[in-house]
């Protein structure tokens, strides 16, 4: 809550109007497309046909027809399961690996610290490039394996640095007293550092989960079997390309109707929208900014 200070002049009428109009416009530009997509996904096929596109006026009633149809489509259902699996497994792996790694990096002067830190920080400016990674992952025999999606994106240098900066700001005395009491590094991490870092771990978890949920390009590169495709890739084929899946394993799926397409879009959006409010409050607390500046 910021209140206007005594020395501040009263806002002018035009100023207030301009501000109000821009706020409303910004909200509209972001929320209106989402509203139209949501409403279309909840409309019957006849309504969509009669309107000739996205449904904007809510007068025609709401039906879950499109969602029922979508969940009867084995391709979409499977892709949804695949996405949930990749997101859950990948996020778990990434968060555990990153927290452990960031904690080990939060202690300057320890054995090998500079080498490890350098090989992480260098990831910000030196990239292996698409083709060497593609050839390498294929050479490892990971084609058509979900590990090909997860492993190349499992460690994000940015997330590690965010965690590390947070860990380094924990008062040194806590570590010292724990060490005097005989706690080892793993115990310190688990019983002291993790409980103090819930906010930053939540933010990093969100970042990883969103990255896995949204990823379609690794799947596109490495999964030849369309039956293994995650939701984001099915969404791309059905909605962006408006095409049936290539060589869908024994399934002759026509591209779905507009309402079903919009239902797929909604399913792809929903996880982000559900988790987001729980984590969003931490953004303001400067969890990320502190790390970026440090």
């Amino acid at each position, binding site marked *: 809550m910021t209140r206007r200070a005594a020395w501040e*002049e009263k806002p002018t009428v035009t100023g207030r109007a301009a501000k109000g109009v821009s706020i409303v416009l910004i909200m509209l530009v972001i929320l209106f497309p989402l509203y139209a997509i949501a409403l279309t996904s909840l409309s019957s096929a006849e309504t969509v046909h009669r309107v000739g596109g996205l449904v904007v006026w809510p007068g025609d009633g709401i039906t879950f027809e499109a969602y029922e149809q979508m969940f009867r489509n084995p391709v979409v259902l499977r892709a949804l399961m695949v996405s949930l699996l990749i997101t859950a497994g990948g996020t778990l792996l990434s968060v555990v690996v990153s927290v452990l790694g960031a904690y080990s990096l939060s202690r300057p002067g320890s054995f090998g610290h500079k080498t490890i830190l350098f090989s992480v920080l260098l990831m910000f400016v030196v990239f292996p490039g698409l083709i060497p990674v593609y050839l390498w992952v294929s050479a490892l025999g990971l084609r058509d394996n979900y590990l090909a999606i997860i492993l190349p994106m499992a460690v994000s240098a940015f997330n590690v640095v965010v965690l590390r900066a947070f860990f380094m700001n924990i008062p040194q005395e806590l570590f010292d007293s724990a060490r005097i009491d005989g706690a080892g590094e793993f115990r310190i991490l688990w019983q002291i550092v993790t409980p103090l870092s819930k906010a930053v771990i939540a933010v990093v978890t969100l970042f990883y989960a969103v990255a896995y949920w949204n990823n379609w390009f690794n799947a596109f590169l490495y999964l030849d079997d369309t039956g293994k495709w995650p939701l984001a890739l099915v969404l791309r084929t059905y909605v962006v390309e408006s095409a049936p899946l290539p060589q869908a394993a024994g399934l002759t799926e026509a591209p779905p109707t507009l309402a079903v397409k919009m239902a797929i879009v909604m399913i792809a959006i929903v996880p982000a929208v559900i988790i987001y409010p729980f984590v969003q409050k931490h953004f303001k607390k400067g969890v990320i900014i502190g790390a970026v500046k440090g």
Partner: protein
Amino acid sequence: MTAPTTVSPAAEAGEPTAPRPAKPKTHWRTRLGRDWPLLIMAAPMMVLVWGFWWIPSLGNIIAFQDYKPYSGGIFGSRIVGFTHFQHLFADPDFLRALTNTLGITAFQVVFYFPVPIMLALLLHSITSGRLRSTLQSVVYLPYFFSWVLVIAIFQQMLGGAGLISQTLRQNGFDGIDWMTDPDTFILLVTSQAVWKDAGFGAIIFLAALAAIDPNLYEAAAVDGAGRWRRLWHITLPGLRPVIVLLLILRLGDALNVGFEQFFLQRSAVGSQASEVFDTFVYYSGIRVGDFDYGAAAGLFKGVVGLILILAANRVAHMLGERGVYSRS
């Protein structure tokens, strides 16, 4: 338990020393005996970082080879030196990717870059905490959508069968399809970038705004400065370090305009307008199967990008800003 017993000469000379724990000058064997749990903790991360980042980086060697994936492999293919790079600069497709990329960067520096700043100023000026946090939540949200989603949403709004065309047609006009028009493509990708990322990009400017000492505003107001003069003389100077830093970073990153956004729209718009560096690498390398040629294009981008970043950081230091890696 190694107490910092020595006083450094700098501290004696009255210079400020960093309040960091002093580095113990212990023997490496002692440190290994003490720190091995930390090494175990770092091990999984190191395996992933080396296994999927640094080891594949070595594969860039094929950019200098006549790479035969099946008969020669990376160890058995003939070295051809800089041949691929020479071909790149005679390749009109590559040159178009280069000019497209630089053009889009330049355009976005002018038309994307100021948007998060203006958004942060707007958010900062909202006095009702409730309204402000609602608006914040709304503008951050699209950052978490994938490019697939964003493009699907834009298609439904601006495409040939989208809402705007549909409304126009129902009222007796011709529909407009912005999603396939190469002439307006640069506007389209920039507005997509604004829609998706500008809100989240405002966070860092909001933090900088919050860090400005409110007493400065009060003092200026007492001295008779109106709101525009306060904006000009206090707010903008307060934002200057962040603006300079981000602008320099963006210029250092000039060859990077993103891959997915362009890849996803390439077939709709055509490669003439939408081919950028990264899509060129994909199409010439993986799609066509000229791995060595594509790797050469990717390596060129990587090396030039690294030089640009280092140069940008140097410029930041010369301007008296902290730059990206001023520490240690």
